[in-house]
């Protein structure tokens, strides 16, 4: 599917927001789902890149993604201009299970893990508590506009204390979470593994959005394997990217 770039803008150094229009009327999707995205740029890089949907701007038939420049693909994306088109495949993957809003919901983001959680917060009637952690200021404030727009209650945490609390998202989560809470998280796998441990300790239910390199995004290459707690491989693009923390074999990542 072709989509047109409506806006592509640097938020803070390395972090970009891209709004895509003309997604087609049948483009639905739910928080936690992602798209495979690629510009029309020859065969290097070859593969599309998975990026979470951060906002569904349904009224306008648009979506927004927020991304950090990591390597070749995201850099190329960052160079694209409004008016150019990209190839989009999506929405893909399983969304976050709808939160039972009678429980307290805590969202925990590690830096660029925030986008799918923003989508989730945007779909909820009551604002959840979002904890966003990162190394330094830019790794947490890049998403502030969305947070303000959706009026999400947020705790900012940075490792160097340059913004918000000093610490990590997980230490902050540990301070707030209770056994009956519902936790959603996205961030580096290391962080997710800590949340899994915490969840076992404290007993809260946690759903995490997992990252793994992808080639196809649709379950045909079998490349995005991750070991399930039951010993088999599951595939992040098709069986995930959202998993219950109890589904993953965290010791063998």
């Amino acid at each position, binding site marked *: 599917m072709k989509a047109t770039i409506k806006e592509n803008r640097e938020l803070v150094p390395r972090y970009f927001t891209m709004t895509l229009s003309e997604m087609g009327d049948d483009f639905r999707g739910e928080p936690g789902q992602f798209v495979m995205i*690629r510009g029309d740029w*020859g*065969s*290097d*890089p*070859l*593969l*599309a890149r998975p990026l979470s949907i951060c906002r569904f701007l349904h009224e306008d038939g648009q979506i927004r993604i927020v991304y950090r420049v990591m390597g070749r693909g995201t850099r190329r994306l960052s160079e694209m201009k409004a008016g150019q088109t990209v*190839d989009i*495949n999506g929405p893909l993957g399983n969304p976050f299970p709808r939160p039972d809003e009678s429980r307290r919901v805590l969202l925990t983001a590690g830096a660029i893990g925030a986008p799918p959680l923003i989508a989730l917060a945007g779909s909820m009637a009551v604002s959840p508590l979002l904890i966003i952690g990162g190394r330094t200021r830019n790794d947490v404030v890049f998403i502030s506009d969305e947070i303000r727009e959706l009026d999400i209650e947020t705790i900012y945490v940075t490792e160097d204390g340059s913004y918000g609390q000093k610490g990590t998202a997980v230490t902050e989560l540990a301070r707030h979470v209770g056994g009956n809470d519902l936790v959603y998280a996205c961030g580096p796998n290391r962080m997710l593994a800590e949340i899994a441990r915490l969840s076992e300790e404290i007993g809260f239910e946690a759903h995490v959005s997992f990252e*793994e*390199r*992808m*080639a*196809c995004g*649709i*379950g*045909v*290459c*079998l*490349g*995005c*394997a*991750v*070991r399930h707690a039951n010993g*088999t*491989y599951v595939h992040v693009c098709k069986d995930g990217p959202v998993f219950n923390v109890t589904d993953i074999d965290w010791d*063998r990542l």
Partner: protein
Amino acid sequence: MKPDLSVEMFGLTFKNPVMGASGTVGYGIELAPYIDLGRIGAVVTKGISIEPRQGNAPPRLFETASGLLNSIGVQNIGAARFIAEVLPRLEKYDTRIIVNIYGESIQEYRQAAECFCGVEGVDALEVNLSCPNVDKGGLAFGTDPTLVQTVVREVKEASGKPIIAKLTPNVTDISPLARAARDGGADAVSLINTLMGMAVDIRSRGPFFGKVKAGLSGPAIKPVALRLVWEAARELDIPVIGVGGIMTGEDAVEFIMAGAGAVQVGTANFVDPAAMNAVVGGIETFMEENRIERLADIRGVIK
């Protein structure tokens, strides 16, 4: 007049020469939401072994310049479950079904082939000859003419199906191997499977893949694939199916001119799940624009 894209091979008619390459279309049905399976010549399934296989530990993918290294490790649900659970759904589509089989000994190949003996709906078997020969220290079957001939003969006997021998490109000279496949009774050969490559993770100072080596596919390998298809086609009187880096209809036409009877599209399906539609359309357009009525008019024009 619409050009005729149909292809006859081993007594079967294929709507057009475009097939989904093994390992890149799942079991075939996964692409149904993206393309009209009835518009492509055939799907070749992921490699299927007698018993289910888990595949390799991640990471399994590494992107290279215009290419992809994979170390999937033939993860599959095994022949029995494929026949019971997948085939009935796949058969509903109006396309040819080719099952790619995998084994690590002659015995395993034979048994895998036997599973499909008499199974209706399976039009042909493609034998992956890049599998490591565990009896011989892991060198691929496809590197030894005697083994190639034996494996092909055994799977043909055991299955009673048309056999496509999928050759490995990691050899000094493809000719004796292509001849061995034919002599073993192959109805066609397909090539190329992935080139053997490797990636290094300079941060961890280790190999990127647990098994160190991995298979290279994608546009990067197209020139090598074309050369091997050309060499094999000059050698053989049975059809050669060209695979390797095909992204567009023009790429497919190149393989056909180099002598391919049909083509398979692999990595391109990852880049764009509708790639095979585009390849079929592209071949059609090329034929129309150049007033080519049938593929035989351009097949193997490069001597």
